[in-house]
């Protein structure tokens, strides 16, 4: 029987090869970053100075860090809109701890932020999976709930640089061989996450759930548990981001982190994570954050009105989504044509 097989169809294999498109996408972002960098430097040479480049890295760090968690959530076809609020609350609670107990070890400050974020993420994940409420609604509600709680706790007061320990602030400005510590922390997190998402079964489940929820059910994937985990990680990283935020700015008020959820989602989507889940990488998301921040600072350096920044970020977002949709529809069309051709051939 096996001797009479039809010749294999191998067309477009290289094109469709896993990871190939992703790499093209990520190279495209790197190229865009380089172009923006070169253009900005040619107008204002100061843009290429060491401290300026350090600012580029620091500025992208917090968004890139939250982008890791958001990527994991979006991969499963869910959304976490509460991360900006988590950042704000986390920073404030850490600040309060330092004010109340000035001797608190700085590591404990970080741990408090992470634990707080993870706890809120667990609530998000539990409501989404156990009660089957769309995560968009759950986390939008959580965004406001936390902001409200934050307001009550803060009660108009501001945590200032006087209560934030100098050693904690150092995380925001100190460097190692010229590389800001913040950037190192974020790069480590991104690297660990990138490796994990490629290498572990539970992580591949995240892609499967977002790629086809029905097929995931049929394959017996514990979707609820995986989505829950993704929300916990997203919350924990937002909590960590709160600690970094406090370290960087050395102050926090009730508005800290407002609107960050949309900056993060924009960065993630520009970085190639499909908005309907199933594909994308944390490295891409981090590059997306870096690109948006580079554009932002390039506009400042070239004295172009900062209002352009938002317009450009929005346009990039649209371009990224349009590109993804175009690619998908192209592949689907190809599939249908192929199917039709086969049918013609077989009915002869």
């Amino acid at each position: 029987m096996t001797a009479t097989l039809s010749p294999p169809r191998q067309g477009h294999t290289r094109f469709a090869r896993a990871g190939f498109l992703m790499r093209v996408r990520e190279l495209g972002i790197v190229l865009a970053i380089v172009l923006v960098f070169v253009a900005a430097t040619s107008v204002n040479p100061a843009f290429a100075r060491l401290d300026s480049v350090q600012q580029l890295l620091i500025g992208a760090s917090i968004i890139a860090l939250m982008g890791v968690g958001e990527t994991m959530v979006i991969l499963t076809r869910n959304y976490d809109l509460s991360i900006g609020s988590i950042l704000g609350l986390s920073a404030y609670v850490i600040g309060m701890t330092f004010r109340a107990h000035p001797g608190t070890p700085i590591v404990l400050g970080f741990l408090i932020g992470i634990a707080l974020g993870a706890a809120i993420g667990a609530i998000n994940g539990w409501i989404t999976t156990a009660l089957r409420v769309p995560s968009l609604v759950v986390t939008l509600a959580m965004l406001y709930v936390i902001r409200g709680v934050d307001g009550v706790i803060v009660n108009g007061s501001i945590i200032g640089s006087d209560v934030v320990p100098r050693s904690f602030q150092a995380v925001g400005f100190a460097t190692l061989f010229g590389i800001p510590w913040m950037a190192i922390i974020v790069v480590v997190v991104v690297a660990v996450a990138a490796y994990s998402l490629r290498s572990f079964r539970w992580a591949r489940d995240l892609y499967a759930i977002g790629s086809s929820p029905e097929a995931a059910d049929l394959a017996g994937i514990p979707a609820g548990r995986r989505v829950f985990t993704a929300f916990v990680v997203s919350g924990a990283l937002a909590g960590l981001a709160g600690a970094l935020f406090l370290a960087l700015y050395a102050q926090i008020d009730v508005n800290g982190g407002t609107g960050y959820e949309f900056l993060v989602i924009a960065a993630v989507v520009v970085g190639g994570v499909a908005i309907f889940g199933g594909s994308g990488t944390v490295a891409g998301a981090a590059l997306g954050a870096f690109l948006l921040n580079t554009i932002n600072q390039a506009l400042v350096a070239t004295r172009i009105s900062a209002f352009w920044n938002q317009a450009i970020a929005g346009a990039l977002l649209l371009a990224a989504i349009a590109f993804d949709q175009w690619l998908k529809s192209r592949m689907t069309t190809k599939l249908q044509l192929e199917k039709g051709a086969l049918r013609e051939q077989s009915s002869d």
Partner: protein
Amino acid sequence: MPVDASDARPVLELERATKSFGAVRAIVDGTITLYRGEAHALVGENGAGKSTLVKILAGVHAPDSGDLRVDGIDVHFRGPADARDAGIAVIYQEPTLFPDLTVAENIFMGRQPVRAGRRIDRRAMNSAATEIFTRLGVVLDPDRQARGLSVADQQLVEIAKALSLNAQVLVMDEPTAALTNVEVDRLFGVVSTLRSHGAAVLFISHRLEEVFEACQRVTIMRDGAFVRTDPIEMLTVGDVITAMVGRKLDTMFPKTPSHPGDVVLEVRGLSRTGIFSDISFQVRRGELVSLAGLVGAGRSEVARAIFGIDHATAGSVTVDGKPLRLGDPLAAMAAGIALVPEDRRQQGLVMGLGIDRNVGLASLRRLRRRGLIPRSAERLLAEDWARRLQLKFARLTDTVSTLSGGNQQKVVLGKWLARDPRILIVDEPTRGIDVGTKAEVHRMLDDLTSQGIAVLMISSELPEVLGMSDRILVLREGRLVAEIGGSDATETSVMRAATGQEAA
């Protein structure tokens, strides 16, 4: 391999299983017994309960009652993972792949080979996939994304997945529907290899010639119930078809003699690449024409193309001799065509809106006064149609989700009839509707034709097709294969045409 039921213990037994979805009884007696080394066919009409039975075996649905035994031991599957662990692999009609993942990942999802630290060993996974493909005698890149694979290749991935499980029972639900002849041969080669390794293969197919070619025993289902299981050599194709359809037409079809007038709808050479091709037919005033065929034959797709929801890639449609702009539902509506879709909950109704607002939806332009829609005009329209269709309801403002299936269907019909259509296309007009309302819908369709409306009906229920139609057009795999006059048609002649047995 001969199958001797006496000396072997069945590998899988399902006895008197029942399963209802709400008021719909999908299976009333699901019974099937599989032995090692046999290829067993499960056949039945559309809606006979085959797919539900498959989903019970797959652990997707838990039966309401009945026994399921694997190797003689009672089992209760809590989910697909349980069935998989019990050695049952299922290949569904529609491939269920993860488009964003690689071919190898699709095969080994949740069971990927791991190395130290529980990390996935991609190299081992890819070579294991390649090994399976080699056994199947095909070349498919394991590291390729599943998106963009042809349906046949997707089926191959599904088959490879089943093989990798070393399943003792392999269930294939219509695996050949999307395959070419060569690929079907290849699949049968795989099936016989599996049998020789002692697996049981359950094969669901509408193509009876395949059943006779590949299987040793056949189980026939009708109306959700077991009819008979026999060795295939004891049966003819005719026996199988008779057992599949065997029932009498009842008095549910109040068909009055029709007097067809001029041609209203003419379809010429209508094609949509990969879906259907070269469809030509006419419908006259006062005539009811049915599009019959198996699920997936392209009937609904033809209707959608006529109404302009899907683009046709070739061909033309004329209404009263005037060419219709294709791909434009508004043009179709303006020309007097109405389409009552197959899925009324998703496509026919806005479930959260009231009866009045649903009825008015297709007539908003007419109801409009100075750019606004007066509620009173909407209510008047709805009251009128509720009375004419004998709708059972509490208040017109009740959301349609509170109505029974039959009454929901009446609302959809009312919505379109309110536009005074010249051509009415109804897709599965009585699916999931109780018997009483079904007869009412039939009477309504008959009334409409006597008023001179041309009706094009798509139905998977043969008795309905036979009882209501002036002419029957049979589609098979996207082609119009037979046109049968209403009085000449029998269940057997339509089924033969639909399954490709028309020569007999």
